[in-house]
């Protein structure tokens, strides 16, 4: 399992893709971060006069994390899209399937590699709000909840990308399909009703950004990850049966 994870990680970092994505993400988020910070500095004198006004955490950190979740939604499928589809098209899947590694371990190994890169992206994002600690005080509880939410959301993106990657030989198709599902989940609460808003990823993420850690939301993210991974394993098992 670790062997597969390490091989995949090496593959990801040997290609310019992971580096490019990290650079793009840093650039976008840093710009957003600075814009938010500047806005805050302009407002600060007036805010100081108001009682109970939102502090720097609410005005800078939360919008940053909100945009980070969207940026990651665009980037993570690109990282995960090749996980299986590239093995299919290069014919290397037979090597993995004919070696003494069970399918769950194969899938978990791949997911572990993806999570490592996602973790790195997450860490880079977390460093920006944390840098504010140099000059001011933050609502650390709210920041922690927000970062937890970002991590869970990114992990869920990764699992979904992995699943779509196991469906097709073409990485681009996997990426597009992941975008489709993730955006749908993000926006599904635009429709009213009883059931659909419960499935919404964006709303649940915003709970966490508000500092609200609800066990229902955590379970939602974990279930999404679990379901995507189980479906991936199932899909590979089917592939072994059908060729």
């Amino acid at each position: 399992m670790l062997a597969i994870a390490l091989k995949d990680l090496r593959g990801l970092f040997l290609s310019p893709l992971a580096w490019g994505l990290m650079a793009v993400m840093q650039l976008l988020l840093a710009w957003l971060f600075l814009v938010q910070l500047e806005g805050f500095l302009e407002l600060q004198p007036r805010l100081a006069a108001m009682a109970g006004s939102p502090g720097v955490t609410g005005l800078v950190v939360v919008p940053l994390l909100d945009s980070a979740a969207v940026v990651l939604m665009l980037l993570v499928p690109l990282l995960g899209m090749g996980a299986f589809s590239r093995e299919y098209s290069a014919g290397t899947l037979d090597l993995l399937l004919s070696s003494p590694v069970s399918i769950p371990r194969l899938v978990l190994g791949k997911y572990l590699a993806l999570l490592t890169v996602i973790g790195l992206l997450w860490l880079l994002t977390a460093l920006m709000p944390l840098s504010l600690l140099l000059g001011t005080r933050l609502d650390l509880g709210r920041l922690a909840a927000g970062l937890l939410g970002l991590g869970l959301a990114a992990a869920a993106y990764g699992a979904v990308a992995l699943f779509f990657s196991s469906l097709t030989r073409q990485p681009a198709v996997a990426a597009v399909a992941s975008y489709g599902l993730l955006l749908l989940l993000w926006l599904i609460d635009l429709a009213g009703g009883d059931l659909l808003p419960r499935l919404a990823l964006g709303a649940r993420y915003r709970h966490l950004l508000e500092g609200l850690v609800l066990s229902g939301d955590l379970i939602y993210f974990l279930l999404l990850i679990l379901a995507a991974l189980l479906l991936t394993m199932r899909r590979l098992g089917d592939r072994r049966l059908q060729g």
Partner: protein
Amino acid sequence: METLLELRDIHHWYGGFHAVDGVSLNLAQGEVLGLLGPNGAGKSTTMRILSGALVPTGGRVLIQGLDMARQPLQTRRLLGYLPEQPPLYPNLTVDEYLTFAARLRGVPRRQRHGALATAKEQCGLQDHGRRLIGHLSKGYQQRVGIAQALIHRPALVVLDEPTSGLDPNQIREIRDLIRGLGEDHGVLLSTHILPEVEMVCDRVCIMDRGRLVFSDRLDRLRGRNDGLLIQLQQPPPLEQLQQLPGVAGVEPLGEGRFQLTLDEDADSAVIAERSVRNGWILRELMPRRRNLEQVFVDLTSGARAA
């Protein structure tokens, strides 16, 4: 000899297409078995099934008596597999790739270095360890593919068209390598190059349209007498030839040439001696042997016409 691999009545369907239809075969330790067949005969499917990459629709695969369906991990540890398209990662170096293959097959950390060196030496890759696989020529990539299948010293090596795309020198080297492997591993290789089988294999199986249509040892194939071709300067009447010991039938071919069909226990020396004694003046005596090509063409094209 100990049975290493046993296929029992393997069937495989791709949707409505019956790709493998009741194949059973055995492979003993230290034997090189060649699987022959025209394109699309089901060779690669059979190879994928016994490599564990594909689960057959019906039938059982046993490796050293272990059922592949029941003990998938143990059985897969016993085999090394080179698919038709070598499973390489072009952005890894040869060393990185072979280390990955060794870890994947569960070679313990301490033995990994030695395993790597041995596999590279066997496949002539000593000087290529640090090269990127994507930069190697097709022939060397094929060697890396073979090295990958050998790195954990499996009891059974399964090679699907190992010499495809190589130049004649490389083909010779790979053939020598395979023959060497046959000494302590069991090897199953598929190909559609007939001379390759004749040079490398102990036993040959021929598949056609999903069925196993022929299976025999090559030395027996070579030893089998299918008759004698003789030329006599002064041929006697046909009946006299027919009365020679061991001769079952005679067919005149003109210009004193005859095609003799022989009994099982016929001795060509006796026939030569008689023709000399009777003053027929023996010009030529040639045993007609069935060669692999004939067998192959008879079996695979005959079935198609029927």
